[in-house]
């Protein structure tokens, strides 16, 4: 196994900001991991993710992707090798599903046959019938379907690394569960490296092979879900996990109470 992503003393302070959005962060992620980055809004998790594909440049420290310092790679070139999915999805409304998915392959100069075959393969992978969905426009899709296309588009050129920024955050709970299962499936089949930002504790614990808990720009704990649940590294993580357990216990108790009275 080699290292997919490595941060070495990385900090980021935005212009006019009083403190660092990301503060002296170091970690490394092995190839094939599905790392979830968990934290409240403003904790720096999105900033951290966007530094991986150079949408944000670090103020200090260095970042390596597949053992190569990204400051020496042309950002546009780097991003073509990394899949990127955002919560707002950002499908191109003027292009059909096929053309949305084909964006990066087209830029990379794939042949039409290869692109068409890849589009169908990806649609199947995200459980949408190619014949039915290929020529639709984004406005003709539900939110869950749109994000499936967002995922397919990011996977199009077969990147070894995928960055996902709260991809299922705006999707209803039932569809979210389905999409999470599909993502686990895609990860297990492809053995790609996934970095998945979320503020949903259940989602982070369910999806992550390891979970990175962030608060105020720094990493509180970076470990397997069971370790984080069993041995929280500090009070912040402990509180987070306790609130999660209590929420669960409360829901269970109510659900199983006599006559489900409320």
């Amino acid at each position, binding site marked *: 196994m080699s290292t997919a992503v490595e941060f070495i003393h990385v900090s980021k302070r935005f212009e006019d900001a009083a403190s660092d959005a990301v503060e002296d962060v170091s970690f490394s992620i092995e190839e094939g991991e599905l790392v979830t980055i968990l934290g409240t809004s403003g904790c720096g998790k999105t900033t951290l993710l966007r530094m991986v*594909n150079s*949408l944000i440049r670090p103020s200090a420290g260095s970042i390596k992707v597949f053992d190569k310092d990204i400051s020496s790679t042309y950002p*546009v*070139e*780097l*991003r*073509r*090798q*990394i899949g*990127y999915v*955002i919560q*707002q*999805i*950002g*499908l*191109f*409304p*003027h*292009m*059909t599903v096929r*053309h949305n998915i084909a*964006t*990066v392959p087209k*830029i990379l100069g794939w042949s039409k046959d290869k692109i068409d075959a890849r589009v169908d393969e990806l649609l199947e992978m995200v459980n949408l019938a190619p014949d039915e969905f290929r*020529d639709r*426009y984004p*406005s*003709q899709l539900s939110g869950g379907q749109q994000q499936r296309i*967002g995922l397919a*588009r*990011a996977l199009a050129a077969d990147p070894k690394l995928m*960055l996902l920024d709260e991809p299922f955050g705006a999707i209803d709970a039932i569809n979210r569960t389905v999409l999470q299962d599909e993502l686990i499936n895609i990860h297990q089949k492809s053995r790609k490296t996934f970095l998945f930002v979320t503020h949903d504790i259940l989602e982070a614990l369910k999806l992550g092979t390891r979970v990175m808990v962030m608060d105020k720009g720094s990493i509180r704990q970076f470990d397997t879900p069971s370790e984080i649940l069993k041995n929280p590294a500090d009070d912040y993580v402990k509180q987070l996990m306790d609130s999660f357990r209590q929420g669960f216990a409360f829901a269970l108790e109510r659900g199983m109470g006599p006559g489900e009275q409320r």
Partner: protein
Amino acid sequence: MIEYFIKYHAKLTKALLEHIQIVGLTLVISIVIAMAVTLVIKDSKRISKAVLQVCNVIYSIPSLALFAILIPLSGLGAKTAVIVLVVYNQYILVRGFTEGLSMVDRAVLEAAAGMGMSRWQIFARVQFPLALDSMVASIQIAIISTIGIATIGATIGAGGLGSILFDGMRTQNTVKILWGTVLSVLLVLVANAILNYAVKKINERLHGGKKRP
């Protein structure tokens, strides 16, 4: 009216052709300049605002005054008229173009950048096609305004339909005024039809021939 046309059709046609020439030339130059200005200013809110302020101030100068100011510089005739009309159009077009581009969904642009599209690819394949409709709307306004203001050009010897209108006014010849008006309106309609056809063609090229729902 028909009688007048049969008698003076050569004069009317000449005026119409002059008008088309002034308007056509003005529009081509205006759009090219406005596009270039927009490309330069689009990434900076501050600069866009400043440039639009300047355009706004110029736009508020009465056309007759602007013609008069320019006569010592570029003389009488169609050249001056075209310069004035191009300058006026900048307010309409630059504003319309920058607004159109800035209305494109941030998330879509973010996704495009994140996928590894270059700045130019983002502009040409995503931002521009999505802004096209509102950009065309501003070109439509520019066409109407140009055809209208171009008639004032007759006062500085630019010719065109304005000369028919001013003749009609001077001699109190209603038929003449009506012909000038009818031809102006026709010109607007034809110009819009041509524009719509062009947009359809561009859209077909951009979307692979399919109409977007």
